[in-house]
């Protein structure tokens, strides 16, 4: 498949701060997830490919055209910004029709497109309310509506699922998937892996301004699975439990927490470890207060992958 978006050695500095470093990517039609913790450079990457900022080094091409100052290209791109910001004194309808007007559509087309977009995001009933009276979820959906209203070929969504309730998330995920079926190119950024997982199998992992993994979800998953996990168990007999765990080869380290009531275990096979833990707890009739995974989050995975 031909790449729609191509970046070559893309780098961006904000003064002395590195925003993005040496990113060379080819993004094909379909949904691509841009995954990384806060401050990883996701928004910088999206701003660069939408021409909002200029690269310090490198190039961006969409449909084999340069992006910077190429206004014609913007009619083929839809962008949903990360910030929860609007022209607050407008109604949802005026906001959408105003932006469609800027796209250069005729009055009739503006009306029909705005109606369609509002219908898609289920905001038709609230279109005449002021945006400042919208709930967070409604604002998020309106932001999405303005990105799709002009029927762009490339849709770039910066954290589109944040602030949505589970039902809203599911609906938006379904919508985004529908665009994939239409052969459009959709880029979605998020710092929440399950959100991206629900959307696509093609993921770009970005961290500290660098892309350090790109590929299928299984590849990323494998990386994550091989990542040693920390599990903390607070129980009435931590020493006894530690002694029984130490014998297993998939238990790499055992130490005690500062409160002396918990035991911290590092394992490279979570499934086997939890199976053993459960059986030990039942067998010894131990009273467990809490089981947590201190590093069971995206940052920990990134830290592991970048070799921290």
């Amino acid at each position: 498949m031909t790449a729609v978006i191509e970046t070559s050695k893309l780098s961006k500095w904000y003064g002395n701060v590195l925003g993005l470093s040496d990113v060379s990517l080819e993004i094909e039609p379909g949904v691509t997830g841009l995954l990384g913790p806060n401050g990883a450079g996701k928004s910088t990457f999206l701003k660069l490919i939408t021409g909002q900022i200029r690269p310090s080094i490198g190039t961006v091409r969409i449909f084999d055209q340069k992006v910077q100052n190429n206004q014609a290209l913007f009619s083929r791109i839809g962008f949903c910004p990360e910030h929860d910001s609007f022209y607050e004194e407008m109604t949802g309808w005026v906001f959408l029709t105003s932006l469609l007007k800027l796209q250069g559509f005729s009055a009739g087309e503006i009306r029909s497109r705005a109606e369609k977009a509002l219908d898609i995001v289920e905001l038709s009933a609230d279109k005449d309310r002021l945006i400042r009276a919208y709930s967070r979820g409604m604002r998020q959906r309106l932001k999405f509506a303005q990105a799709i209203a002009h029927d762009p070929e490339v849709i770039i969504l910066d954290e589109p699922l944040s602030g949505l309730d589970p039902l809203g998330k599911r609906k938006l995920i379904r919508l985004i998937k529908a665009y994939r079926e239409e052969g459009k190119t959709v880029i979605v950024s998020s710092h929440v892996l399950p959100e991206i997982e629900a959307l696509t199998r093609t993921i770009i992992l970005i961290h500290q301004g660098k892309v350090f993994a790109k590929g299928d979800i299984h590849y990323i998953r494998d990386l994550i699975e091989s990542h040693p996990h920390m599990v903390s168990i607070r129980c009435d007999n931590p020493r006894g439990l530690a002694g029984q765990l130490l014998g297993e080869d998939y238990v790499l380290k055992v130490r005690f927490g500062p409160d002396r009531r918990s035991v911290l275990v590092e394992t490279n096979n979570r499934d086997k470890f939890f199976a053993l833990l459960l059986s030990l707890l039942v067998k010894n009739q131990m009273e467990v207060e809490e089981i947590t995974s201190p590093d069971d989050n995206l940052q920990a995975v990134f830290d592991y992958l970048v070799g921290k």
Partner: protein
Amino acid sequence: MTSIPPTDFRSFLSSVGRVFAVFFRQGRKARRTRFFFLFSFLPVAVSLVIKFNQVFSGKPGREGGYLFTNLIMLFYLQMIILILALFYGTSVCSEELEGKTLAYLITRPIPKAAIVLGKYAAYMAVMTGMVILGLIFSFFVLNVDRLLDPSLYGLLGRYLGVLILGLMAYGAFFTFLGSSLKRSIFFGLLFSFGWENVIQYFPGSTQRLAIAHYLKSFLPATSSGRFSFLTFRLEPTKPGLALLMLFAIAAAFLALACLFFSKKEYSLED
């Protein structure tokens, strides 16, 4: 289906027109417009107070034309157009940064310069509407007893022209400030009520470094007493040259504003 990309000057103008249409509507409907509309109508209230006082006290008082000139100098030229131009001019760029709405505009198929020019034109239209209405009402209230005097209308036309030129030049300057400085209001206030007044006291060509100088060059030389600093030691520029200068100032600062807005990468701060 996608829209037609702008490729030439006509499509640039069409982009400016589209931006104008959006922001003229927004400018008219905004809550702040109601405040500024009332603000620019304060001289009308003052005129009414004067007229009522004349009618009920039975004293003829000052002549309407004199009061009208005074009103223009004090309220409109020294305050209202400065305040309006400062707020709306800086709003052209600053409100997009403060409201973090810039991304909605710059990811549309319109040149960045068209955004600046379209918004400037829209806000100019809103401000001009406010000032013209206020001025015309004040004029009629103060001159209600001699509305048949045709010379008065020439005076009114001249004052209207001066105020519109003032809005145009100051608006362009403040648009430039808004596109280039973070604290544009503070520097705008210093310029409007510091520089523009102080520079009037200097003799020779120095007073030509103020926009107010060119505006005053169109007005009859009158002393406005205690608040006369705007006409203090005026060495007027010929009206034709003054007009040219005001257009040049507006064009230059708008061009600079477009340049800054197109080239500068704004950081959206909290």
